[in-house]
């Protein structure tokens, strides 16, 4: 089965850029049946935050589990991974479920999983 996801950059110099990932194109990796997208400053990541010096090289990942739930996982990053909670933000330690459309921050960069178009 092909897995797809669109992620939109919501801040910084790449604000508004839409990044599309698909397992068919070899994006992400399979791990114990889950689909993993890696995010960080290093080139080998799926989502490369080259322009964010506050992002760690292997900063965080997104995990799509077999139940169809997205998880945001922090890789013990230096400047932290955050999710938006109401009008505030909360630091992620370990992993935390993520909803479509919910904003999250890796380093200084805000990102969002785009809800599927109807």
């Amino acid at each position, binding site marked *: 089965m092909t897995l797809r996801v669109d992620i939109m*950059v*919501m*801040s*910084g*110099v*790449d*604000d*508004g*850029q839409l990044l599309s990932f698909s397992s068919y194109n070899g994006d992400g990796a399979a791990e114990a049946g889950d689909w993993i997208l890696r995010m960080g400053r290093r080139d080998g990541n799926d989502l490369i935050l*080259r*322009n964010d*010096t*506050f992002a760690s090289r292997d900063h965080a990942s997104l995990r799509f589990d077999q139940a169809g739930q997205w998880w945001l996982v922090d890789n013990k990053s230096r400047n932290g991974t955050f999710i938006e909670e*109401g*009008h*505030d*933000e*909360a*630091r992620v330690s370990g992993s935390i479920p993520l909803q479509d459309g919910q*904003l999250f921050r890796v380093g*200084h960069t*805000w990102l969002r999983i785009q809800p599927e178009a109807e």
Partner: protein
Amino acid sequence: MTGTTLRDILIHARQESARMQQHYMGVEHFCIGMLQLPNSALAAALEVQGYTPPYLIDYLRRKAGKGPKQRLWAGLPYTPRADVVMGIANDIALEAGRTEPDEHDLALAMLEEGDNLPLRAFAALGVDLDRLAADLKAATPVSAAAPNTELVFSDAFDAELSVAHLVLLRRIFSRNGRVRLERWLPGGHTSAIVLLATPFRPEGDADAPVVVKLDRADAILDEAQRYETIVKRTLPALTARLIDTPVVLTGENLAGLVYTFVPGETGRVAALDLDGDALGNWLRDELYPTFGATWWNQRRPYRFPAWAEYDWLLPPLVTIEQIPEDEVKVAYVIRDPVRRARVRTLEYGSVVSVEDFTLEQVRPDKQTLSLIGGKGQEAARKAFRIEVRKAELDGNVWFRGEIVERITGRVWRTRDESLMHSVMALDPDFDPRAGTIPGSTRDHRLPNPLVYYDELLDRKVDATLSMLHGDLHLGNILVGHKQAPFLIDFEQARTGHTLFDWASLEISLITALVAPNAGETWDFARRALGMITNLRPPLAGEAAEGVYPILAVREIVEQNLAAPGQWAEYAIARAFVALRGIGFSDLSTQARRLLLLVSAQAMGDAGAGSATPENAPDATQVDLSRTTS
């Protein structure tokens, strides 16, 4: 047309991007560029809703964050979203027959794109985006002329107001023909002014009275935001509510809020209008249950080091005078985790750097900055405040909430010195290093707060956590229709130590009701302390008036202790709230003396100095037989 062009906006936007070390053009820069225009339509439309440009720019900068020191790319690229917004603005301009978008077009494009950082920030602040779009489309310039509202003072009004306050009041009541200022409601220790006023309709009929609060613009706007996001949904049915949005006097950094008020038949307004016994009963039987349902009674277990909840009440950890970096050798760096014991020993004039603190306040008029320890959620504790004097404000961008990487200065005053300064004003002969000070009776000694406050900050407190008012003093408590409690001033509303509100209220009762009768000398102060300590009926004499409500507060506290009978939890709260009071310059000397003693005794009750706590009389042991009568 205002005569400003797209070029003007883009010049401001580019400068903003460079100042923030971002080096790209995003929608946030367009937005700040527009807000900085001399006759900005966007700023005017937001000011109608009560938001000033400086406040909004601060907030946008905080949301976007400063860029890194190094540049990663050449030039000043537009973000993909900025391209989209500029495209929409061009379309709007073309449809209107203009060759180039103007400020209206760009602002409307920003609203239409709908997903950008400024709009997310505006939504978080509670801006009505539909109204903003409608006001921008209507394009009628908002009149800022001073309205001709007539201000009348009632005979009972006994305070002086500045010209700026009067102009602001006229603007707040611009839709009314006349306003009668009924009463000044004193009680706080800040710059805030609270009034009771009756507006009249243009036809002459009186409307319901309202409570007006005037204060610094940032404080008022913060209060309005807290009210919207935290407080509103927790309020009982009949109580004070915010009417409309704040009204701002931009040039004066002043703003005002209006709360509803429904007066009772008796003409009583302030809680202090009730006499001792009635006030006590009312606090216990009306105020506590009414707000308790959604606030204090929804408490859950909470264990914290005392500093996490109480450090912010104390004077700044250290005050420094900023000097240019790289000029001298830095002797010590203050960073998280803060070592208070080390900071305490810093000498006057030694050079320190502060790293990764959060900027809490900028005061251009005083050339000062306030920094607080930690980032994000930690900074909400406001602990370990550091004041920076003679701050370099020119040429730097400072915005509230910013994480300050590094700031360097010479030590001007430590916290110990600030406290000593306050105590010396009460008694020049005070020995700041003595372990104990005289208590309420001849052979009763109390721990010296100046010696023990610091170790008490590290005490782990077994307590509970709940929603709080955060500034519960007599000036913020009003009595309305059918004795309904009306609370105002939600600037400090938050989730925190449940007993904080009650300790604040008790200290407020002590200063308002006990201290005025306590006489001028230390002996009188000690006698007053003895009376608060041995709270047992029957109480006699004038000063006893003030003790009944304190007794009621203690009854409420008893129900709110994390562990039944463990009063040390409350003693810690009282110790720090009372210690804060000795620095309030608007309190009388006798009130501040009494508060020093109250703090000392509370520290003793909390076990500071371990002056045989088992045998020491427990200040908070109360005889509750009165409650059943």
